[in-house]
């Protein structure tokens, strides 16, 4: 896959890091401000897609990246289910039990396990959308015209 022109490349160089940090901000503060795992995950995927579109990678590098992203996605999904099962082990016998202390409303470390769910769901959404994009690119690369 070819990259784009120099204007897009240089702008992506400066902007992509900022988009990524904004996505992490939306995920981590999901229980205080608008946003959360779903919104932030899509923003993270957007920054990765921007870099891939602007620079264009070698074919084998793309395949390697796809394998890594697949593993990340599966791990994130397993983590969500493990936290849900954690309700059985700590406290009462309820699936999806909020077993950590809740803290006071409005602080960063509060709301028990909700920030953890946010982080893992964000990772999962980001990696799954990025996988979809990568597999479309790889399909175009490897199939004959």
């Amino acid at each position, binding site marked *: 896959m070819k990259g784009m*022109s*120099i*204007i897009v*490349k*240089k*702008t*992506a*160089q*400066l902007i*992509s*890091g*900022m988009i*990524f*940090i*904004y996505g*992490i*901000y939306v995920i*981590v*503060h999901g229980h205080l401000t608008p946003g959360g795992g779903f919104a932030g995950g899509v923003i993270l995927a957007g920054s990765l897609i921007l*870099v891939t579109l602007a*620079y264009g990678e070698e074919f084998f590098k793309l395949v390697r990246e796809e394998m890594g992203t697949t593993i990340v996605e599966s791990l994130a999904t397993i983590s969500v289910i493990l936290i849900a099962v954690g309700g059985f082990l700590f406290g009462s016998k309820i699936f999806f039990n909020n077993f950590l202390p809740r803290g006071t409303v409005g*602080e*960063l*470390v509060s709301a028990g396990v909700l920030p953890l769910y946010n982080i893992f769901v964000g990772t999962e959404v980001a990696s799954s959308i990025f996988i979809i994009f990568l597999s479309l690119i790889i399909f175009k690369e490897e199939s004959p015209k």
Partner: protein
Amino acid sequence: MKYLTLFILSMILWLMLTFEFTAANLIAGAVASLICSLFFGRLFVSNVGKLLQPRRYYWFVIYLFVFLWECIKANVDVAYRVLHPAMPIRPGIVKVRTSLKSDMAKMLLANSITMTPGTISVDIIDDCLYIHWIYVRSEDPAVYTAMITGAFEKYIKKIIE
């Protein structure tokens, strides 16, 4: 070096976004900036020493005012062409040779040209910019180069090169 600069910049951005100085927030910001610099550090601009020279920021502020003035002039011009009943437009693509060397300077020049109404930079090949212009005033390369890039080029050279 690139990684460290990106780490510091993203940390500043994080603090501007959240604007609270508790320990938990600082730790979260540090972890986020670490992940960000690991992912995007190899793409960041290479010669980061230029970020520390205050002279460049001074010229950047002056450049903003110059850009604003050019933008207002171009706005009035395009509004006149749109509102005039005969619509005096003569679109075309011109090839402008620039004397700027670094890629970042070329990017800034192209984006400035795009953001003034009436001109859009289509592509950059080596050191030539291809620009779509709403009214091609002259076909002589020396004249239109001075018209399009003359106001910006010397400031950009002082900011980035």
